[in-house]
């Protein structure tokens, strides 16, 4: 079986800065994969290149057997490729419900929207209480819920999440990750970028460890948990 997402020799440059340099990555259908690494390792740039927000300098991107690079960003979501961007990117002056409907913008089957809105609201009850408020009035955690709910409204086959735990209180992170688990159990393929490596490894099957734009380690999540290099560099301990 060929992978749902196949990345070969991806290079992303910003002027003279080489953010990603020769990255290879495979994500199988139904798999949960995480990219972990320090700040500036090139994780976000990788996701942005897959979503089409930055143009790669080089490399091959294939999704569901289709070359991605010639497809503009706005057409990729229609193929089931959704990104929850870093910093959430909610539309502050749209209401919660309008934000969620934006997620379904590319879809024609609007008769199904009410039911799917209900599904998102059942995952995040806070959003339901505030659905007619402007998204800018939400707390950071609620905005993250909204960004994830909005991505779900696009009916993703591959859901990419960029630092969903960033800047959130531990209890909120717990909540967000329990929903991410639920989403994965519904059969959505996950590609998760996280600085909180422990959480990411708990949720995912497989991990790619990135350093300065390159993959330095690929292994199953459980093996990474035991790997001394990963433990000291990303799990923040020398022993227990």
């Amino acid at each position, binding site marked *: 079986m060929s992978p749902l997402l196949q990345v070969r020799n991806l290079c992303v440059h910003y002027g003279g800065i080489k953010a990603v340099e020769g990255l290879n990555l495979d994500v199988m259908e139904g798999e949960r994969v995480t990219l972990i690494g320090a700040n500036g390792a090139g994780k976000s740039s990788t996701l942005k290149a897959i*979503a*089409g*927000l930055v143009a790669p300098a080089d490399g091959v991107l294939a999704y569901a057997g289709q070359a991605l690079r010639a497809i*503009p*960003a*706005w*057409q990729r*979501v*229609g193929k089931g490729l*959704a*990104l929850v*961007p870093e910093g959430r*990117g909610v*539309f*502050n*002056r*749209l209401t919660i419900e*309008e934000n969620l*409907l*934006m*997620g379904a*913008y*590319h879809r024609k089957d609007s008769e199904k929207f009410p039911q799917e809105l209900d599904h998102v609201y059942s995952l995040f009850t806070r959003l339901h209480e505030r659905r007619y408020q402007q998204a800018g009035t939400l707390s950071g955690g609620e905005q993250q819920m909204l960004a994830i709910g*909005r991505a779900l409204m*696009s009916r993703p086959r591959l859901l990419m999440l960029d630092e969903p735990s960033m800047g959130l209180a531990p209890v909120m992170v717990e909540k967000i990750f329990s929903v991410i688990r639920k989403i994965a159990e519904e059969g959505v393929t996950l590609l998760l970028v996280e600085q909180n490596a422990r959480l990411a490894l708990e949720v995912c099957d497989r991990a790619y460890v990135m350093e300065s734009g390159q993959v330095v380690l690929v292994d199953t999540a459980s093996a990474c948990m035991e790997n001394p290099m990963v433990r000291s560099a990303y799990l923040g301990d020398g022993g227990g």
Partner: protein
Amino acid sequence: MDIFLQQLVNGLTLGSIYALVALGYTMVYGIMELINFAHGDVVMVGAMVALTVLQALTGWGVPSGVALAVAVAVAMAVCMALGLAIERVAYRPLRRAPKLAPLITAIGLSIVLQQLAALIWGRSYLSFPSVLPTASMSWHGVIITAIQGLIIVLATLLMAILLLLVKRTALGRAMRATAQNPAVAQLMGVNTDRIIAFTFVIGSALAAVAGVMVAAYYNVGNYTMGFMLGLKAFTAAVLGGIGNLPGAMLGGLLLGVVEALGAGYIGDLTGGFFGSNYKDVFAFLVLIGVLIFHPNGLLGSRAREKV
């Protein structure tokens, strides 16, 4: 009191036109933070096209109502195509350029449109054929002409339609999303280039109608008519809070009323030293006042980068 009410009616008429034009400025600013200084000249093109069509049709003996409707439709079609072309040719190539580049392009474009119009229609004034009803109604000494009534009703209707489009439809949501965060809007499947082009088209359609209204109200059209009108509508947009649709409507109406009242009373207040021909001063006094005391405008909430 009679003068006050009369000038209020005159001001609301003028203000409705300013509001329609101001919407074009504010929509484009909202979606790409660009002051499209050529917008006033799109209004002029609308007026001149309509005048040409009207003169031809009435010459052939077409009934006035039909001639007027056709003229407005043709003016709208031409202006929408012009708006589309302006975005495509002048602004899209500069999407990633520094903010000043499209701004200078806008000013250049304004000059180009004016000179083209001078070549096509000449430099003299075209007069508006008498196709409009000359009836008027009087109420406690205040006279409302049919043209005034028509302008106010039509402008209100168009603004209501625009608000419904922007606030209640998926397309309107996509416009607002693109204005707030174009990159994320693309992630949602929005073709932001198309949305921006659409914004120009809508603004230009409103401009065309406003152009016909101005020409009908003053009975003339000329290749320079878009300049002052554009500046005033821009003032109205800033007054209401640029980027804000209801703000542009409010700003337009207020500016029209301020100008009309100013023109009505300036003679009395200065003992006849300044006449009503100084009415243009008021718009710019308003602009200076807003920029000094309330740069975000009446309904604008956030401080934004100003040109």
